[in-house]
């Protein structure tokens, strides 16, 4: 998350003579990222990015602690003049023994709650200092009481709520889970219907007065008539806050703190500092006993680490003295024990420092990633057949993509998910597809098993272009029983052209891969009768054909498609051996015959090859109406014409009409 903080609020607690630009540069290298600086009046406002694990930094106290550790590494002198998190405790305050506040807590929802009633409040405008602070961090000042609660949050990183005591029935606060459908009007003037299992507070009359961790209820708000308040500083379980904020879309700065998990210890200094401010700026008087409800609090964790371990991970020598200085300036306890260092983790780091490698991070970042040398990772080569196969397939894919693009095809990248409409237009059964259970759009629900609906949609979306040739190479997802789907890398082609033209393209692709393609008759639900199965080197690899007029109609032109399994195509690719190979002397002869049903090209070729071992290869030459010309490459016994024998065979055995020479 990002947070705004005025430079002046940091300077007030940390003595240093560093310039604002230097402060930005140095802190960003080693700690929180100060992304931008804006000059406001005589001050500067930092826009600071804080990572989720370091929500403890998202406040003045946190930045002061970081700067205290980081600046000395750059030769800058620093001294903390006010340590917000450790300088204030309950012992600073006196509480009367008045029992006017009754809180019923559920520790699974709220691990710690502190509260007190304060009387004789004077509502007025905040001081210039607090108002200016709030304006700089982007919060609208309201009155001295509300402003103090916001101010505290930015100083301590601990959200605070202040209720009007007289609006709480019976002085009773009951923390509980909401019931689905309950309604609450919040301070943002909106009424929310709760999804259920949200943390809420109800008062003695059973009305909801707070959507905890997110926003206070409108009905218990501090207004100009308020004279008695409840200062309420709670900890909440982060998972509830996150869920509520996501499901209700009610967001606040408080919720972004709580959903990341705040330690329960900072409740105390925030509370004490808050009471002091309310007394000072609101003329308030503490008028109840202190309520501090919690279970076991954090006991400082101890981690053992050596300077050598840290040195190994960074890659260069870090002195033990440096390690100790860095850690203690961050607030860690440091003690020597035998050959290692015993590190004690302060309460504000209890959620992100657990083990020796966490200590490495603390030392390394303050030592400075910018000072670490750049060394390229050592070279390593291992024999790995799987990798080799993968990389060869990838190279072939790039070769095919390059070929297609150079011959006028446009490469598309479409979503892996398709809509029900897309499946329906290709008569594809949605039930056979894997489905997203939490889709964000009707368009992206089914894991596609065919690239064709995607490319077809591309055609429809781009009708202003003529003679389009599109392709995409991507995975399709074929479900399997009790396992992850089979992810089949697939080539999809859709073009406004003839099937002959598409076949030419496929033929060239096959030639580039040094393999062969043959076709067999088939029937496809979304294609006309002009469609075929595609075989690569004899192995079934996919389909090609012409789309039904119903589909073509919408796209406004003739559309032919091919969808071929890339894995099969790539697997049939052979390494061409060209060197030192004696080329045989073929006899080349052509035969033209009349196509006869049942003897499609693939079948006829297999039959001829089966009948005559002398045939080395048969090439397709041409087709005119139903007359097909083939070319024979043969190595016959001396003086024999294989064409003559083939013609005889075709006539007598297969009953095919052959054109006389």
């Amino acid at each position: 998350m990002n947070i705004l903080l005025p430079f002046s609020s940091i300077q007030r607690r940390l003595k240093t003579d560093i310039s604002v630009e230097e402060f930005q540069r140095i802190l960003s290298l080693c700690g929180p990222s100060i992304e931008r600086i804006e000059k406001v009046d005589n001050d500067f406002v930092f826009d600071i990015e804080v990572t989720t694990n370091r929500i403890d930094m998202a406040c003045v106290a946190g930045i002061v602690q970081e700067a205290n550790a980081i600046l000395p590494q750059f030769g800058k002198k620093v001294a903390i003049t006010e340590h917000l998190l450790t300088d204030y405790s309950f012992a600073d305050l006196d509480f009367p023994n008045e029992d006017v506040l009754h809180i019923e807590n559920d520790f699974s929802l709220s691990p710690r709650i502190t509260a007190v009633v304060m009387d004789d409040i004077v509502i007025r405008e905040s001081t210039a200092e607090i108002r200016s602070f709030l304006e700089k961090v982007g919060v609208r000042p309201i009155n001295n009481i509300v402003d103090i609660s916001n101010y505290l949050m930015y100083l301590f990183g601990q959200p605070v709520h202040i209720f009007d005591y007289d609006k709480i029935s019976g002085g009773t606060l009951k923390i509980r889970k909401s019931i689905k459908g309950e309604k609450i009007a919040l301070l943002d003037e909106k009424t929310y219907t709760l999804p259920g299992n949200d943390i809420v507070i109800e008062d003695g009359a059973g009305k909801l007065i707070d959507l905890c961790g997110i926003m206070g209820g409108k009905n218990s708000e501090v207004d100009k008539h308020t004279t008695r308040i409840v200062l309420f500083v709670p900890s909440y379980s982060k998972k509830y806050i996150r869920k509520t904020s996501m499901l209700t879309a009610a967001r606040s700065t408080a919720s972004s703190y709580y959903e990341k998990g705040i330690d329960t210890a900072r409740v105390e200094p925030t509370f004490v500092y808050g009471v002091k401010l309310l007394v000072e700026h609101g003329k308030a008087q503490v008028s109840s006993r202190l309520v501090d409800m919690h279970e076991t609090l954090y006991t400082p964790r101890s981690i053992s680490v050596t300077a050598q371990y840290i040195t190994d991970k960074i890659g260069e020598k870090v002195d033990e003295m440096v390690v100790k200085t860095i850690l203690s300036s961050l607030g860690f306890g440091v003690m020597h024990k035998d050959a290692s260092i015993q590190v004690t983790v302060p309460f504000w780091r209890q959620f992100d420092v657990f083990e020796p490698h966490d200590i490495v991070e603390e030392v390394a970042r303050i030592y400075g990633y910018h000072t670490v040398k750049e060394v390229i990772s050592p070279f390593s080569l291992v024999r790995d057949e799987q990798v080799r196969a993968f990389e060869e397939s990838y190279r072939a894919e790039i070769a095919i993509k390059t070929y297609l693009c150079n011959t006028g095809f446009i490469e598309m990248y479409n979503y892996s998910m398709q809509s029900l409409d897309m499946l329906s237009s290709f008569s594809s059964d949605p039930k056979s597809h894997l489905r997203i259970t939490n889709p964000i759009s009707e368009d992206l629900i089914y894991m596609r098993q065919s690239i064709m609906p995607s490319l077809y949609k591309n055609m429809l979306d781009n009708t202003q272009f003529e003679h389009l040739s599109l392709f995409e190479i991507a995975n399709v997802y074929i479900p399997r029983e009790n396992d992850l789907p089979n992810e089949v890398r697939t080539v999809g082609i859709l073009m406004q052209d003839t099937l002959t033209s598409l076949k030419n393209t496929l033929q060239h692709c096959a030639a580039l891969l040094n393999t062969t393609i043959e076709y067999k008759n088939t029937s496809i639900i979304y294609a006309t009768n002009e469609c075929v199965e595609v075989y690569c080197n004899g192995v079934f690899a996919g389909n090609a054909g012409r789309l039904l007029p119903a589909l073509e109609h919408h796209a406004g032109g003739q559309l032919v498609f091919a969808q071929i399994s890339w894995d099969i195509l790539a697997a049939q690719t052979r390494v061409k051996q060209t060197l030192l190979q004696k080329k045989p002397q073929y006899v080349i002869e052509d035969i033209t015959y009349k196509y006869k049903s049942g003897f499609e090209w693939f079948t006829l070729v297999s039959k001829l090859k089966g009948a005559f071992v002398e045939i080395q290869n048969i090439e397709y030459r041409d087709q005119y109406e139903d007359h097909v010309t083939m070319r024979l490459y043969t190595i016959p016994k001396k003086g024999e014409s294989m064409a003559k024998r083939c013609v005889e065979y075709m006539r007598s055995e297969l009953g095919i009409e052959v054109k006389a020479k």
Partner: protein
Amino acid sequence: MDSHIQSRLSLYARSFENAPSLDELIKIHTEVFGKKGYFAKLFQTLAKESDIDKKKTMGVYLNTEKQKLEQIFGAKQDLFLQQKESIVGDVTVPGNGPSLGKMHIVTSAIEEIRRIYSRIGFYQYSYPEVEWEYFSFEALNMPSDHPARDDFETFFVDGPVSKKYGKMVLTPHTSNGQVREMLRVGKPPIRMINIARCYRPNWDVTHVPMMHQFEGLCIDRGISIQHLKGTMSYFAREFFGYDVKTRLRPHNFEFTEPSFEVDISCIHCNGTGTTDKGKCRICKSGWLELGGSGLVHPNVLKAGGIDSAEYSGWAFGFGIERVAMIKYQIDDIRKLYSGELRYVLEG
């Protein structure tokens, strides 16, 4: 000599010299030297001559004259062949060119990235996109209550549930390949690059529900932050230009410790944060975020069956769309998968 022949030959010589065009010249040439031409006739007559001396003299004479005429013809022909005809129209107009297609910008970026890493010994491999929760989360040190694992951050798939590995998800990052690769090779060294699709349920100006990441994983003895830093800088310089500076900033990822955000100096304002039009719109104070990286967390090595006392490693994961947008200056990420050709062709 026959004066008739002489005058005829000199007439031909003049005809050659005065021929108005190449075609005319060739026509006369045929008349003189062709199979049924003048010389052919003369030699036929000569063959019938009975007087040997006369035949000899005449033969020498005819051959000499024939050569002379050929020379005259040749000189004139050269003249014609060297002539430059004047032409009509503009010869400098451009050609129409073949109709070329277009490779998608993501493919171009992937290919460039692969090439850069291949030079320093990294191999490419791939892992499932539809993945078990275990490999996308648990194995990466992200327990079941981690926010990234809820419905708002990860797509779940209505498929079989594995007793061992949990539910089926669309992997939200390419890091699922980390532990899969460790288990595949069994024992380091590992120098892997994985480039694949991943998915997250966000759809706005800066997010699309499907994106491509490239993941790098290096595991060996003695791998340190130095190596991570060196390799990141190498990539940034090769991909964005030799003047580009790299910095590592502290960050947080569950599967690395320490974790870094990798930044490069902004290639639009040269890292200054300002352009002549004011504040640079692309970067944050002169720096651009590339993506996350860090030393592989010991728990992740453990999940991959690798002893973290003996081996260490680094990993990174960058969004291809992000680096492509920076390099090729695309302002709206949604254009990449919109399927609208005016954007595809623009890229």
